[in-house]
């Protein structure tokens, strides 16, 4: 049940690049255009990266519409602060946004990230070793990937709410305001965070607009920056969450013991790591931080800046990992209130079995394997499915035909033409024995 991407049908060439890049095999090409199986889409953005025709886009809300409203309240993804050399600073960005009548409530985000890191550290302190490692819930695409491809691991996902949700909740409580909130997001997965969150009924935010959109607008010279103020004393720990390892470092800063964490980014690494964990091979590890985008959220498809430059800015940032007593007091109050807790349990997304009872499901699986054995096993994608296996499954589920495979089609045609040739040799009785 995704919602972060959309297909621009006129641009779709019906090629198989996207369907083969999809980690959950959620895409098919049907009648010349790609379609997405929503229940399986995790909004990782991999199809966008692999589409040579730019036919897949982020399905973001219209900034022009949002910004035409009288007052706009926005909260920025941490990647937003490392997009532009000229605006690599929380205060400058707040001022720039203010000049557009946009209230930036990201100060609450920095508090919320502290709360999340602190809550996770407490959970890791109290969890018994056989239930470790726990897995991050920061990347919504990772949560969905686990729900679909690694259902056995859902119990290990740390039940802590998204810091963005927490930030908005605190802001609402502190200010008593009820405005719509726009989240500036670096990827399709965080659009889904707003439209279709996991672990809660509704998001506290109402709109999602890409970081890229706002960066373009800022750079186009809309706002005026009056001051050359440098960032002083602001908590910038949370900005590190946009690069691989930042979350783990933040949690470690709150932990009472040295934590053994593994941080990886990119879809391939994430899948490999989860697979190893599923096989019970990660004993002795406390926490797993993974992001489906290369280098972390700065690699998300909704950013404007090169992920390498963003990373360099993050690497050169002066970060204060020591939490001051004041900061501790502020976050502890919210922690005690349980603001970090998820509303709902995260559960696995079950694949539909082939039949409702085991016996007939087994028969159909045998049939599926028989069909599969007749297919060429080269996963060419011409049938519009990501693999021969997927075609076999679609056929068994009544969503495809053997002749969708061009190799099978060719075989069928050649058989047919042989039959036709045979038939053509066949002389009518009236002509038999005579010279035609």
């Amino acid at each position, binding site marked *: 049940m995704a919602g972060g991407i959309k297909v621009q049908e006129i641009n779709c060439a019906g090629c198989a690049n996207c369907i083969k890049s999809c980690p959950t095999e959620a895409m098919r090409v049907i009648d010349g255009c790609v379609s997405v199986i929503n229940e399986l889409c995790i909004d990782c953005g991999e199809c966008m990266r692999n589409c040579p025709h730019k036919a897949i886009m982020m399905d973001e809300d219209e900034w022009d519409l949002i910004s035409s409203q009288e007052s706009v309240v926005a909260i920025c993804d941490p990647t937003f602060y490392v997009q532009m050399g000229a605006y690599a600073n929380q205060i400058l960005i707040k001022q720039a946004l203010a000049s557009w009548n946009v209230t930036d409530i990201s100060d609450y985000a920095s508090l919320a990230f502290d709360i999340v890191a602190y809550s996770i550290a407490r959970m890791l302190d109290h969890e018994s070793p056989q239930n470790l490692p726990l897995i991050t819930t920061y990347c919504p695409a990772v949560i969905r990937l686990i729900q679909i491809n690694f259902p056995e691991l859902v119990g290990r996902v740390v039940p802590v709410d998204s810091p963005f949700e927490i930030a908005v909740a605190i802001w609402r409580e502190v200010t008593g305001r009820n405005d719509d909130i726009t989240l500036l997001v670096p990827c399709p997965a965080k659009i889904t965070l707003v439209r279709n969150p996991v672990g809660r009924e509704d998001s506290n935010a109402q709109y999602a607009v890409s970081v890229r959109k706002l960066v373009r607008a800022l750079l186009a010279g809309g706002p005026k920056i009056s001051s050359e103020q440098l960032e002083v004393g602001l908590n910038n720990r949370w900005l590190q969450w946009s690069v691989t390892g930042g979350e783990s470092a933040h949690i470690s800063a709150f932990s009472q013991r040295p934590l053994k964490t593994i941080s990886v980014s990119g879809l391939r690494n994430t899948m490999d790591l989860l697979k190893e964990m*599923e096989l019970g091979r990660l004993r002795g590890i406390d926490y797993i931080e993974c992001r489906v985008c290369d280098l972390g959220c700065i690699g998300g498809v909704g950013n404007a800046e090169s992920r390498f430059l963003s990373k360099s800015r993050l690497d050169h940032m002066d970060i204060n990992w020591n939490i001051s007593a004041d900061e501790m007091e502020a976050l502890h109050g919210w922690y005690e209130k349980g603001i970090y807790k998820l509303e709902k349990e995260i559960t696995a997304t079950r694949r539909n*079995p082939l039949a*409702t009872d085991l016996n007939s499901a087994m028969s159909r699986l045998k049939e599926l394997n028989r069909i599969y054995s007749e297919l060429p096993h080269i996963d060419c994608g011409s049938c519009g499915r990501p693999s021969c296996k997927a075609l076999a499954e679609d056929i068994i589920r009544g969503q495809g035909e053997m002749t969708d495979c061009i190799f099978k089609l060719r075989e069928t045609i050649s058989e047919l033409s042989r039959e036709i040739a045979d038939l053509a040799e066949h002389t009518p009785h009236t002509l038999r024995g005579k010279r035609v």
Partner: protein
Amino acid sequence: MTTNIYEEEFKVEGGDFMNVGTASTTLKSSLEMVGIPSSITRRASIIAYEVEMNLVIHAGGGIIRSLVSTDKLMILAIDEGPGIPDIDLAMQEGYSTASDAIRELGFGAGMGLSNMKRNADVLKINSEMGKGTSVEAIIYFTENTEWRK
């Protein structure tokens, strides 16, 4: 009621580290498709992975056969490798004869057989030196097994 048995067989090549994990991934997807609960699928894929690794590393390849019936799941690995001289010793956590080269690849911690034992209801190993080894693992579907609707 006719007992329907679903059977799947895999040929595993010796030394083929590139494809290792295929048997377990395929088994997992088959089990999911027939609606076996994930708690069992997880245990089965761990066992399949470990036997597959052992076939690749220690036995020069072999076959893995998985059989699903209505009350249990059986994973059978058969090879014609060198055999295991002392099975009790091999079962011990941390015992491994894997070479340094293999350890460098991240295998050979001597955890495989004990990992299998933890996840199987029954684990039987037969081995004859110079002839080969067979490993049979069974997971029962109990009344408590939560079936999917």
